[in-house]
């Protein structure tokens, strides 16, 4: 299976070329994808943890007798 291609435009000559990626370029692309995926997973985990902490705090406030309106007012 051939490697993916890239488009190269020489701005001086105006010539556009379709060039197959080298194996090293494919490896670099895959490495970048792995880094991006790790960052995405990290962001999702942080967001989930934040939402869980918020829900926990709201439950504790409700247990103390605050109404839903009062809890919502605190988070503004």
């Amino acid at each position, binding site marked *: 299976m051939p490697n993916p*291609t890239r*488009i190269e*435009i020489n*701005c001086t000559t105006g010539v*556009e070329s379709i060039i197959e990626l080298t194996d090293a370029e494919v490896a670099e*692309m895959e490495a970048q994808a792995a880094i991006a995926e790790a960052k995405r997973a990290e962001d999702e985990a942080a967001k989930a943890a934040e939402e869980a902490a918020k829900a926990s705090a709201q439950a504790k406030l409700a247990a103390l007798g605050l109404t839903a309106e009062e809890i919502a007012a605190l988070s503004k």
Partner: protein
Amino acid sequence: MPNTFTLIASSTVGAGGAASIDFTSIPSSYTDLVIKLSGRTTYASTVEATSLALNGSNTYATKYLQGDGGSAASGSQTILNLGLMTGANATGNTFGNSEFYIPNYTSSSAKAFSGEGVSENNATQAFAGLFAGSASLTAAITSITITPNAGGSFVQHSTAYLYGVRSS
């Protein structure tokens, strides 16, 4: 302030897709550069960030402010992500838009950049982002490579336009 805006080069991705779009041998006869991008990628998400490599490197500092209609986030990155595109999970045949501004690209001093981008998705979640980047690059910028950052490839009909701006 710039008073001219000249198309240097453009590209439209063909049926085979493209891993990147590279502008090479950029002439030094302008003051600033602007890139306008309409992009959709193969990445299995509703959005994919857009990375720029300048003279072959994209490891530069970036700050971002991004929202998706439900929440907002701000942060730093060590890669020159300056825009957004629509990913494969977004509404079919929709494309994101981004614009990158690169002032004083022939300067021998460190350079700063700005970018903005939106993904397109006819559903609840779509993204918009503002980006700022800096690079300790002291050579004139002669090549710019635009790459989907998470491993996707540009799909057919994605377009990129490179403009030169003159201040006089």
